[in-house]
């Protein structure tokens, strides 16, 4: 004798699938274009879920990520997470299938109660929802970590202003990781370009405190050992006041209020200056 789920799988598969897809299209896909590959993926997932339900019920259903169903579900979720879909939609689409199946189950056999089948359905979908939720969060977290890494890459350029003159514009928060990366990049560039002057522009640093100052001092010390002089620019009036109140002193560092003055100073050190084209030459 066939179980209720086997009968559903055998007799009503196509209708139930059409029902579910129809429901998803009207509820979740309204706002964005709906790639046809999605329907195929959903059908594959649907078949896998039905196959699991038609199998032998267990008291403790936990979805194995390596099983066929696990792989289909995580592939679908991965795609949705990458497209920055709402996690509630992903889980909601699973729960929609659950309610369709529950209704079909009850309609199947009005005579005998289907409590055991309903409980099994519940356990399976609990497991699926937990699994979907976890994979969704995992993928988003990985995305965020990747993005912050690329942001870190972006945010520490060392620019060559002129022969032997480097510019390091610091923008944003300087924490331990950032400071380490800035130092590393700067030292590499100093060695590569044999820089004699490095301009450290702090215009974009929101708050100067002792830990930022400490990071900067270490960077400056290391840079000095490679034979470059440091010109610091862009400390705001508030920043300057705060640093003195904190009692922080940057010994032996040339400081200029603006990047413009800093570049002029740096060029002076390497024996250059910026002059107008039509300047009269001395006779």
């Amino acid at each position, binding site marked *: 004798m066939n179980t209720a789920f086997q009968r559903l799988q055998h007799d009503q598969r196509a209708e139930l699938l059409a029902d579910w897809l129809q429901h998803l299209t009207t509820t979740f896909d309204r706002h964005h274009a709906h790639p046809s590959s999605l329907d195929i993926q959903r059908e594959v997932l649907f078949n896998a879920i039905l196959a699991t339900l038609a199998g032998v019920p267990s008291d403790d259903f936990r979805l194995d990520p390596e099983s066929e169903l696990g792989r289909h579900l995580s592939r679908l979720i991965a795609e949705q997470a990458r497209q920055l879909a709402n996690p509630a939609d992903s889980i909601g689409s699973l729960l929609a299938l659950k309610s369709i199946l529950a209704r079909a189950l009850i309609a199947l056999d009005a005579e005998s109660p289907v409590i055991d089948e309903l409980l099994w359905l519940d356990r399976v979908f609990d497991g699926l929802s937990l699994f979907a939720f976890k994979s969704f969060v995992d993928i988003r977290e990985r995305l965020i970590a990747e993005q912050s890494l690329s942001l870190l890459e972006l945010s520490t350029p060392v620019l060559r202003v002129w022969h032997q003159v480097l510019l390091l514009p610091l923008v944003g928060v300087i*924490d331990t990781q950032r400071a380490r990366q800035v130092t590393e990049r700067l030292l590499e560039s100093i060695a590569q370009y044999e820089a004699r002057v490095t301009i450290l522009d702090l215009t974009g640093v929101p*708050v100067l405190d*002792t*830990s930022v100052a400490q990071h900067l001092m270490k960077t400056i010390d290391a840079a000095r050992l490679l034979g470059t002089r440091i010109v610091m620019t862009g400390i*705001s009036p*508030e920043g300057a006041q*705060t640093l003195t*109140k*904190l*009692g922080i002193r940057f010994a032996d560092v040339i400081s200029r209020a603006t990047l413009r003055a800093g570049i002029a100073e740096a060029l002076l050190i390497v024996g250059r200056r910026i002059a107008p084209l039509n300047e009269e030459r001395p006779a």
Partner: protein
Amino acid sequence: MKPERTPPPSDAALAELAAAGVRVLISSEPDIMAASRQARLLAERLGFSRSAAYHVATATSELANNLLTHAGGGRLSANLLDERFGSGRLGLELLAEDEGPGIADPALALTEGYSTGRGLGCGLPGVKRLMDDFSLEPRPGGGTRVWAVKWR
């Protein structure tokens, strides 16, 4: 040139700010930045001058840094102090509390250049100078409590 004083916020705005204090649990480096940013925002909304708001932001990040390095984490809060009906002043209060080992010698901790960690030793004395009122005391249940106020 004296910086222009902005007018104090309206009563309604103050009521809103009083309810919206800053409370940050410090357990990692990004929390420090978040606390500092939020405290600065609060100071700006209270109408502090640019430099006073900067002082508050720096003091907050010093205190939060201390929580993390010396106590392994703690709570930092920033609140509006409304004394318009007493001394007639408006202030911003910073409170840093931890359940760490406590400070063995508070006087020494406030000494310039003294540090038990790897710091520069100017954090706490710096906070004292950046803010107007300051106190450092052991918490009843263990740990340390630092309180500092900047008046508008």
